[in-house]
């Protein structure tokens, strides 16, 4: 921080030109005091030449504090000569206003984005509901829809997850609760915890009513946990497909297998799965068919 302050003590520090340097140095100081990516090994501060290369230049990399003007603002009044007191006060107020506007600007941007997402989700939900309602008339089980191209299990995908049945009858005692609590972790975006919960669920209810759903979610979750686990994901989807070939999620699992194989670099296997989805479920209204077609068109 000290190196940044040196530049702020000049009498002209409140003038616009000096401001550039003040900001820059404050930014640098901010970087040095926190562990921004470009920051050098601690202890190098004593050597002025040791610090310099390690400091990143704001034009190429950002300071971690991300509010570069903030330290400048707080230190400036002390540096202002008394004759310019009112100018200095005005300047500080201006700075504070700028900070405030920036913060509000950020909030507006984020809320506008949230609104956009919510609109898209509610449309998705409506389409999904509509699809399932119309499916009730034609077939017993409605296909579970996974959000278009989006691997992250979202609330939009969530709706069809619970009511899905495998035709194996009623849930075992406690099963619904266990599934529900594992599933709530997905909704809460606690993916690592969700993986553990679904695995535990499958240990307790390997043949339960929700077992196929659990396999499906595990497949999805292994794709979003960090680090991604493509092989486990593949196994989960494969298991679902081999043990519950008639499950409503079978086309989705097949589509996902295609994607997983693609991610693993197996283009040929990927294409086989995707083409199989189109071939075997082409006449159903499963969303997996369209997703597979799109994926094929886009990547092959």
């Amino acid at each position, binding site marked *: 921080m000290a190196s940044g302050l040196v530049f702020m003590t000049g009498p002209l520090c409140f003038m616009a030109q000096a401001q550039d*340097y003040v900001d820059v140095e404050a930014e640098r100081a901010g970087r040095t005091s926190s562990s921004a990516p470009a920051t050098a090994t601690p202890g190098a501060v004593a050597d002025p030449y*040791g610090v310099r290369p390690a400091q990143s230049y704001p034009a*190429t*990399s950002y300071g971690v504090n*991300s509010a*570069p003007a903030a330290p400048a603002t707080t230190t400036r009044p002390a540096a202002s000569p008394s004759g310019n007191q009112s100018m200095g006060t005005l300047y500080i107020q201006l700075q504070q206003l700028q900070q405030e506007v920036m*913060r509000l600007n950020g909030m507006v941007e984020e809320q506008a984005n949230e609104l956009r997402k919510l609109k898209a989700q509610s449309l998705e939900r409506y389409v999904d509901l509509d699809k399932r309602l119309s499916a009730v008339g034609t077939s017993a089980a409605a296909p579970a829809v996974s959000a278009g191209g989006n691997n992250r299990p979202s609330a939009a995908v969530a709706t069809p997850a619970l009511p899905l049945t495998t035709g194996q009858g009623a849930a075992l005692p406690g099963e619904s609760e266990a599934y529900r609590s594992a599933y709530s972790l997905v909704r809460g975006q606690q993916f690592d915890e969700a993986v553990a919960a679904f695995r535990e669920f499958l240990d307790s209810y390997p043949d339960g009513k929700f077992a196929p759903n659990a396999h499906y979610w595990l497949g999805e979750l292994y794709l979003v946990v960090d680090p991604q686990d*493509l092989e486990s994901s593949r196994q989960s989807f494969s298991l679902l497909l081999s043990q519950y070939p008639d499950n409503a999620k079978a086309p989705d699992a097949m589509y996902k297998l295609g994607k997983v194989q693609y991610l*693993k670099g197996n283009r040929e296997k990927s294409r086989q799965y995707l083409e199989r989805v189109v071939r075997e479920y082409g006449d159903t209204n499963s969303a997996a068919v369209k997703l597979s077609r799109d994926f094929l068109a886009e990547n092959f």
Partner: protein
Amino acid sequence: MKRLMLALAPLLFALAALDVHAQLTIEITQGRDNPTAIAVVPFAWQGQGTAPEDVAQVVDADLARSGQFAPVDRADMLGRPSTQKDIFYRDWRAIQSEYLLIGRVLPQGEQMRVEYELYDVTRQQQVHSGAESGPANEARMLGHRVADAVYEKLTGIPGAFATRLLYVSATRVPGGKDYFRLTLADSDGARPIVLLESREPVLAPGWSPDGKQVSYVSFETGRPAIYIQNLATGAREQITNFKGLNGAPAWSPDGNTMAMVLSKDGSPDIYLMNMTTRKLTRVTRHYAIDTEPTWMPDGRSLLFTSDRGGRPQIYRYDLRTGTTERVTFEGGYNARARVAQDGRNVVMVHQKDGRFHIAILDLVTSRLQVLTSTELDESPSIAPNGSMVLYATKHADRGILAAVSVDGGVKFRLPSREGDVREPAWSPYMGR
């Protein structure tokens, strides 16, 4: 005068590998689960004496580094065919090699020619054949071009091995002043050539779209200024000398314009410089810091970092409509974007749980994926084929370069034996 310029480097073409210690080496840290087995048989040398360069070894190492191939160990090869008639497929089936690459190297005066054929061992047929020619002293580049062709044939994606890297290294001099080097190297870190050595910081290296010129910021005059340098002639030119910041130069895809950050009119803003007339146009006008411009491949819009929303985030400026929209929303810190040639994937520095990682954002689905598990990651640069991301990170308290595939599946490091290495810039395709 505290500053001292050590060397300009106009003699590029005459320089071979300068400093063995400065060379980057490669350590693969994570590969794919099921890489394709391929046998790269040492190419037959058809000249006098021994071959000046083991071209097949270059191909072998390139394919291995991609993580998508597992080259067969030479010691396991039961034969060393160099023509089709010498191939016994059972030898290669026995060691479970799915593909076989053979070739011949022919000296032609100052030139060299590499002929090669790729075979599918299971189907027992040739899948590809080709030849590459070039200066004999650039034999490694021929190997990289063969690797590019093989990679494209087997994965469907053009290879990016015959490309080059720029990076900045800082060497600490105990008790003295550090020095900075701007280095040009092959994509595997081999054949490093120092373009600029200075006692003052060198930053933000970048490429012209034809790969013939580089741009960078140097403090050699005591203040930041943007320079461009021709790689073939070594000719070098200072193109800015404004008050305040002169930084983050980024050539437009057509090469006619350069985006840059200047603070001559107040806070740092993005400007465009016409490279013919050197006329400046101001792009952003905001009291927040706008920096790190980068071009979308169509040249119609720019991505840049700004803290106009209170925290650094990526924004897109549309050059035709003059509108700015925010691009990143996930996380409180997203900066230094670079766009893949597909115009869809954007890599950036992303803060998660207080750590700085490299993340990739799909502009179509808005899905953001964190690619790296290291921390303090910075300066991502994406390969021209969009397959790998090179970035700077810290390992064992040293600044090193590391690479990760865009799906996060393959990782390797390129440690340097000396100094801190930073700010990699992957070249575009060269001479295609």
